[in-house]
């Protein structure tokens, strides 16, 4: 039998198989983009992460490209969710894969606790002083943008727009509500906002768990992340879900049948920052300049306009117009914003996730 097998493998067939496998891999490789380079040939280089979607598009266009050309630095942007970036940096501490990482508050405090973030030298940053007070982080770089949580819905299937997160519990929406899993930042923000609405806080979420259990008949899907939640909304799998304004306004501009309303009560938010990684390959000056560019009025103004619509952290940068119309004036916004305390959340999050898996998931 072995002889039969051996004599059947000819040079031609081996070459053919090799060519087939090679072509297959090439076709597959063409379909994936993990990173790309912007900027020009110059002194240094910097490797920074960003989130996918609007974040990546905005950072490539207004941050990486312009910074690279102005400073003569080669900027490589990698699309990587915050938790994954932190996880990789922790795993390779002495020789981290990135110089600067874009991370939300939760992973930022986790990374700080693990000692993988470098202190931000304020005096080297021109725009440090221009940031609104609520967006500073002690010892670290300030936030570059914020996202606000509201209610995303399908206007074709829901004629009366919801006004409050408590509308999710309306029996009319049985099986039509989607929620994000607690592993995602969106899911945790929604959960903590729910606790707040029920009179609890980041340390007292018992009522939020009870409310989520009561929501089970209405839950059509628990999505692992914001993008899959938005996909489900577009596909008609669900008709209503808690979601970020920027994300929903972005897909609405691209033609999706979705709309977003701000709850009449407080509006929960989550901010993200660009942090310099300890032991980064890029020199500190380059890394600080890159973060400083993200804090600048130009970049923040650009990122607050459609299709990005992020809430700026620079004191002078305007609110996204559409969001301002939905929320009222900027002065009102300060009073309406609810910024969860992620330092407390991080201490309790593992326990919440495990309980959520047990009580809420199938």
């Amino acid at each position, binding site marked *: *039998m*072995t*002889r*039969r*097998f*051996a004599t059947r493998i000819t040079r031609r067939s081996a070459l053919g198989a090799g060519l*087939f496998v090679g072509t*297959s891999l090439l*076709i*597959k490789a063409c*379909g*994936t983009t993990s990173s790309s380079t912007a900027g020009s040939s110059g002194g240094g280089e910097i490797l920074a992460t960003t989130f996918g979607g609007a974040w990546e598009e905005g950072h490539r266009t207004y941050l990486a490209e312009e910074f690279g050309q102005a400073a003569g630095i080669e900027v490589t942007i990698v699309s990587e969710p915050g*938790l*994954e970036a*932190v*996880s990789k940096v*922790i795993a390779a501490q002495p020789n981290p894969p990135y110089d600067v990482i874009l991370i939300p508050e939760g992973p930022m405090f*986790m990374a700080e606790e*693990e000692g993988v973030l470098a202190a931000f030298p304020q005096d080297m940053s021109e725009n440090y002083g221009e940031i609104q007070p609520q967006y500073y982080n002690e010892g670290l770089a300030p936030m570059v943008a914020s996202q606000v949580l509201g209610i995303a819905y399908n206007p074709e299937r829901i004629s009366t727009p919801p006004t409050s997160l408590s509308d999710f519990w309306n029996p009319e929406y049985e099986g039509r509500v989607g929620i*994000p*899993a607690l*592993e995602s930042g969106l*899911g945790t923000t929604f959960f903590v906002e729910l606790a707040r609405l029920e009179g609890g806080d980041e340390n007292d979420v018992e009522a939020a768990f009870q409310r989520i259990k009561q929501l089970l008949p209405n839950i059509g*899907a*628990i*999505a*692992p992340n914001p993008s*899959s939640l938005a*996909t489900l909304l577009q*596909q*008609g*799998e669900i008709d209503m879900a808690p979601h970020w304004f920027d994300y929903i306004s972005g897909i609405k501009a691209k033609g999706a049948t979705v709309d977003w309303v701000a709850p009449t009560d407080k509006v929960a938010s989550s901010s993200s920052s660009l942090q310099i990684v300890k032991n980064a390959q890029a020199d500190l000056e380059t890394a600080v300049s890159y973060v400083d560019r993200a804090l600048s009025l130009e970049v923040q103004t650009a990122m607050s306009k459609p299709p990005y619509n992020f809430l700026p952290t620079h004191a002078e940068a305007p609110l996204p117009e559409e969001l301002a119309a939905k929320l009222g004036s900027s002065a009102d916004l300060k009073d309406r914003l609810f910024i969860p305390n992620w330092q407390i959340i991080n201490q309790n*999050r*593992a326990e919440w*996730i*495990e309980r959520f*898996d*047990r009580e809420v*998931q*199938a």
Partner: protein
Amino acid sequence: MSVANLPTPKRKKLPLTQGQLALPLAAFLTLFYVIPMVVLLAASFQPARGGGFTLAQYAEFFTDSANIRVLTLTFWLGLQVTIACLIFGYPVAYFYHQATARWKTILTFLILLPLLTSAVVRTFGWVVILGRQGLINSLLVGLGMIDEPIKLLFTHLGVAMAMTQIWLPLMVLSIIASLSQIDPRLAAASESLGGGKWRTFWQITLPLSLPGIISGCLLVFALTVSSFVTPSIIGGGQLMYMPTLIYQQGVVLLNKPFAAAVSAVLLIMVLIVVFLLSTLGQRTRKYVQ
């Protein structure tokens, strides 16, 4: 008999022995597989904070009923997908084996076609098919078989269906390889001795193709229980399998020792199945010879 021992009078003797030829791969595997595996296993015996040796991670895994449910569900998924792949894959492989050369070319292309597309793309295709307004529900509602769309997405059944389609080519290819090793004279001999087509299939073809079935089952089972993308997209946040649990613990909660322990448990589950199927494979190989 091995390939190197075949009589090759016209060829020069290879200067390297078989062992030396395997050295680059052995070095590669040691560096990128064995060492990381040792590091992983060592991590699973560490406490969540600080150093030392502890069995706490394993104790925590096996004392929590939620984790046992995840383990059972993952094993069950592997088993279901393997059986489904076998049921759907064998007839395709058999048809290929019986087909003419021209058909074989077309079939080879069709069988390999799904492998040219990324599993992520195929999974998103399944999201569209399984949705409330997807292909299956539209068809069933259109035929009047159901009034309201049934829930397929975010169900275990949906995950099993998608995984079956994704890993089916591997089962088909393994069985084809095995069927092509069968001496066609055996079937002819059976026929000349009065054996009908069914009898020939049950008593000759099927037993002789067992090595292919076993290797196909091994591949499909191991790949299914370790899949991450498809279960997380089709299963959503409501279904938890071992790879999703590893991701949750390792990346979201940064609990590396527990994630390592879950990985080790998954590895042991796969190794047990590999051992059982390999033992079965050894027996069938004796039968084939």
